[in-house]
């Protein structure tokens, strides 16, 4: 476990920002303790050959400042593509550094995945987070990149466990072994997405509690929860509404066992807000806060976890 995870502030329950949630955020500031934001949606990357390369959405950033009203704004990027082999997206890091100057967030995160790949003179963007093989070669490639992120930003950097729909031959580690080794070898923290854990367990018929039981939960700084949906026999991480009961059960299991947890964030795609409705969202966020207050900020003692 990295030393810098010990001083994580206990923020509480966060809501993931979506433009469709703006009216809700303006009127129901009582429902969240922090805002999580995919910062990439509040800038436009014109490409590395353009100057300036990034155009910031100043209205969007002003909106965040206003509705956060002094509460933390935590970036959760999608553009780093930390597992991409052919280059490291340092432009994204420049942007996150700028955001740290603006928001002084207590941690930041991205996905343990890749979406950018070489393509002739151009670059493909798959638009979905693709899984990395769970092996030492992957960890060796990630280590210097995580080190660079940690050098440049003075707050913990978390990577989120991914959803995957297939495994690859020759993988050397289980999910838990890979995530533990990642944190141990690189010093990053873990953003544990419990809905992703649930998706993978359901699609691949594995036991999510086995994974969680083998995971070093001292590395978990943030938890994501969400709802999903069935599609042609697959369960998708669609962020399409309230938490299904099995995800609530996973959360109740994890909350007392994560001593360095800083917050639980509810994620929902803006397009599903109309279906879910404001009242149901309030209900979900208050239920999460109740669970948070029951188990945090006084987590179970490490000795009890070990037992």
């Amino acid at each position: 476990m990295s030393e810098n995870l010990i001083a994580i502030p206990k923020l509480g329950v966060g809501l993931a920002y979506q433009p469709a949630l703006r009216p809700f955020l303006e009127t129901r500031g009582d429902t969240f303790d922090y805002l999580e934001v995919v910062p990439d949606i509040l800038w436009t990357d014109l490409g590395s050959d353009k100057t300036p390369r990034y155009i910031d959405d100043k209205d969007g950033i002003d909106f965040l400042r206003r509705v956060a009203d002094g509460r933390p704004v935590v970036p959760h990027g999608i553009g780093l593509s930390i597992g991409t082999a052919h280059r490291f997206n340092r432009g994204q890091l420049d942007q996150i550094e700028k955001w740290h100057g603006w928001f002084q967030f207590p941690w930041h995160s991205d996905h343990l995945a890749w979406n950018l790949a070489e393509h002739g003179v151009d670059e493909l963007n798959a638009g979905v987070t693709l899984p990395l093989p769970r092996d030492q070669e992957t960890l060796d490639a990630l280590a210097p990149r995580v080190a660079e992120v940690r050098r440049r930003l003075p707050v913990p950097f978390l990577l989120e466990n991914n959803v995957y729909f297939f495994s690859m031959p020759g993988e050397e580690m289980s999910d838990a072994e890979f995530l533990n080794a990642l944190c141990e070898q690189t010093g990053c923290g873990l953003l544990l997405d419990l809905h992703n854990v649930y998706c993978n367990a359901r699609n691949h018929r594995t036991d999510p509690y086995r994974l969680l039981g083998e995971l070093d939960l001292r590395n978990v700084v943030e938890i994501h929860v969400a709802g999903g949906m069935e599609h042609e026999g697959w369960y998708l991480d669609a962020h399409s509404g309230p938490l299904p009961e099995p995800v609530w059960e996973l959360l109740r299991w994890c909350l007392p066992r994560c001593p360095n947890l800083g917050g639980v964030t509810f994620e929902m795609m803006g397009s599903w807000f109309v279906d879910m409705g404001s009242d149901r969202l309030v209900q979900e966020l208050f239920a999460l806060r109740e669970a948070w207050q029951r188990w945090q900020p006084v987590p179970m003692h490490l000795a009890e976890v070990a037992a």
Partner: protein
Amino acid sequence: MSAAAFQALFARLVIDPEFRDDVRQRGAAALDADLTDLESERLLFVSGDPGMDVTRTLHKGFRLSKLMGQLPLTCAALGKEALAREVAEFWRRNPPVSFYYLAEAVAFCDFLAARLEEGMEAPTPYLGEVAAWERAGLELQRPRPEGEAPPLQVVEFTHDPLPLLAALGRGEPPEPTERPCLMIGGYDGGKVEWRLAEDAPAV
């Protein structure tokens, strides 16, 4: 850099169904790159895994939702069948290169304009002008460096644009009436503003 070649082919399996089918059929012969044995084995395995199909569905769904979100009236004017056909052809020629889909939506409008020019059978007589109008709106909203103003947009209509666009916006089939005119768009006070002109503007 075989890891980079591995990922390039992996991404193509997600994005390009013809390539995926080719790998399924021809096996390692379709993987024209300097790969390790394990990388080849992994690509061959995932190309045939049902999980690759759902990954592709998610990729397509995300990309299509971005296009439909930026060009709702053009998509309505195309109709379901022509939309599926034209999008498939556009994607075949234009792999996804950015997370920012405004440029892709503009390129799709240009693609449709070229297809109409080539004699594509348009599903509706007003497709070209609706696509040109939405393209102009995107140009006006395109993020620009501070101090750079978007250029004035002029769109030529042969059908009365106001009832036409309103009906499409409501999801109703328009009953277009002929009315040659221009729509002139500008960006003022953070908003796109349009005005109708019967004649060409003095530029």
